[in-house]
């Protein structure tokens, strides 16, 4: 599959003492929804800013549409729609006027403004001043702005930040729709694995400026399953450990037992084995891994 974005050994430092990216080799397949994951401060926004030319870098290791960003900035930006950090909107203008400002720069007809307002579901609030918009409406208008010139590639930095669950679902559905019906390649950054896995086809995980994982969502799920645990509170943790020893990897943590599993079927098996072995099970609790924990373990291994 061809790649729309490719970075090769991308480094970046804000100063000689503050390097924030180390050898990042990002490869975003054309037509994908690429989830760019990492905890806060991992280097996601810095990477996205470099892709958009918002940060200057001497090394020209960034290729978008097979062209270097430093030498082809204008040609590349014509085909990219972006939302970096919080929505960039003129609060003293209405939603329609905001799009009008950018439509002038893209030399786009007013018909397209109405079209994108329709796509993001803001036709009814087009004449309202942006300062009166809710955060969700601002996010949607910012996405409309990114879509205005019908770009091939969307770069969205945490577009669901600060949204309520309904807003998150709306944006998620919108992105799926844009990818499937309008064939947009979408690079979306997030610190929530649970959020990205619902829409992404490909995933890259960055931590402390290093790309620790890159691959399809299926590969990520496999990786994650190797690091999933349940915690069992039982009447005799040692006896339970011995009972499970042949089939499961179990460790004692205080008076609870931590058992590795790969799928839901195995959870049922663990429960059944303990019950049939005469162990009183008081509680079975899924131990969720946040990204940092998961990848700290990966690094350690």
């Amino acid at each position, binding site marked *: 599959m061809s790649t729309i974005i490719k970075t090769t050994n991308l480094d970046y430092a804000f100063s000689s003492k503050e390097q924030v990216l180390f050898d990042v080799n990002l490869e975003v397949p054309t037509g994908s929804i690429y989830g760019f994951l990492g905890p806060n401060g991992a280097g996601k926004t810095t990477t996205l800013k470099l892709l958009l030319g*918002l940060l200057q870098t001497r090394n020209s290791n960034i290729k978008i549409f097979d062209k270097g960003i430093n030498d082809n900035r204008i040609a590349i*930006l014509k085909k990219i729609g972006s939302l970096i950090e*919080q929505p960039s*909107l003129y*609060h003293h203008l209405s939603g329609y006027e905001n799009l009008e400002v*950018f439509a002038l720069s893209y030399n786009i007809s007013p018909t397209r403004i109405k079209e994108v307002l329709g796509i993001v579901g803001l036709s009814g609030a087009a004449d309202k001043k942006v300062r009166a918009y809710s955060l969700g409406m601002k996010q949607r208008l910012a996405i409309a702005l990114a879509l205005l010139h019908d770009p091939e590639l969307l770069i969205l930095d945490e577009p669901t930040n600060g949204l309520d669950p309904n807003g998150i679902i709306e944006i998620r559905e919108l992105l799926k729709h844009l990818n499937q019906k309008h064939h947009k390649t979408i690079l979306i950054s997030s610190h929530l694995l649970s959020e990205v896995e619902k829409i992404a086809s490909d995933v890259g995980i960055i931590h402390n400026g290093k790309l620790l994982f890159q691959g399809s969502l299926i590969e990520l799920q496999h990786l994650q399953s190797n690091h999933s645990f349940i915690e069992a509170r039982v009447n005799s943790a040692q006896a339970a450990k011995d009972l499970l020893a042949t089939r499961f990897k179990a460790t004692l943590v205080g008076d609870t037992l931590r058992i590795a599993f790969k799928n839901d079927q195995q959870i049922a098996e663990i429960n059944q084995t303990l019950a049939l072995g005469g162990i009183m099970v008081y509680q079975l609790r899924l131990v969720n891994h946040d990204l940092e924990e998961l990848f700290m373990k990966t690094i350690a291994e």
Partner: protein
Amino acid sequence: MKGFCLNMKAEFFKTKGTAAVWLTILGAIFVPGINFIICMQRPDVMVGKLSPEPWLMFLRFNWKNVAAIILPLYGILMTSLIVQIEYRNHTWKQVYALPRTFADIFFSKVIVIHTFLLSFLVLFNIAIVASGLLTSQINPKYVFPWNGVPWMMMLTISSRVYLGLLAVMSIQYWLSLRFRNFAISLGVGMGLWIVGIVLMDWDKIIYYPYMYSFLMFFTDFKVHPETLLKLTISSIVSFIIFITLCFRDICRLPERG
């Protein structure tokens, strides 16, 4: 070129309904409005003061405060306000993510700022004429004939003062782009202007850009014709130097937006 014109239009659009528009309108009519009230309230003093050349005297009466105080402060404030539209709304990154050259982004704002300044001058001159005509309509003791309006004199003074403001506007533009905090560009600008007022008697004041507009109005060029040439050259040269340095500096910033 078409792209640049469209981007300029977009830049003007952003100022819609902002304080920059109101500052220009109110700033331009403020002094002529005050002087109209003074003329109405104190004809006993003003009729004598404005004769025998009422238009010329009225013009000087209006211009002295504007050239010395209002315009330099307007220039400082206006430049910051225009740049602040982007900072306040966190839109610089979106502007730099547009397929626009850095020169396009930089100079389209310069043109917006100077258009506002020129609009101020035009409005101010209109307000002077309107104020004079209205004064003579209400109180016939004042004689401001329509056919006596010194258009040429108004154009000359306005052009000279505008020329005198070029360098200040480019320095202020640089400061406003460099510092996100509105108070820094405003504070430094006002500080430099006050320093100029304090140093007014300095023999090298002609090389101090913040006083050019003041000198352009208050210097008697009939007595010191050589000063006009010096001031004009200093204004243009310092404008070119500062705007070039500013552009180079902004292009080289490691982070945009």
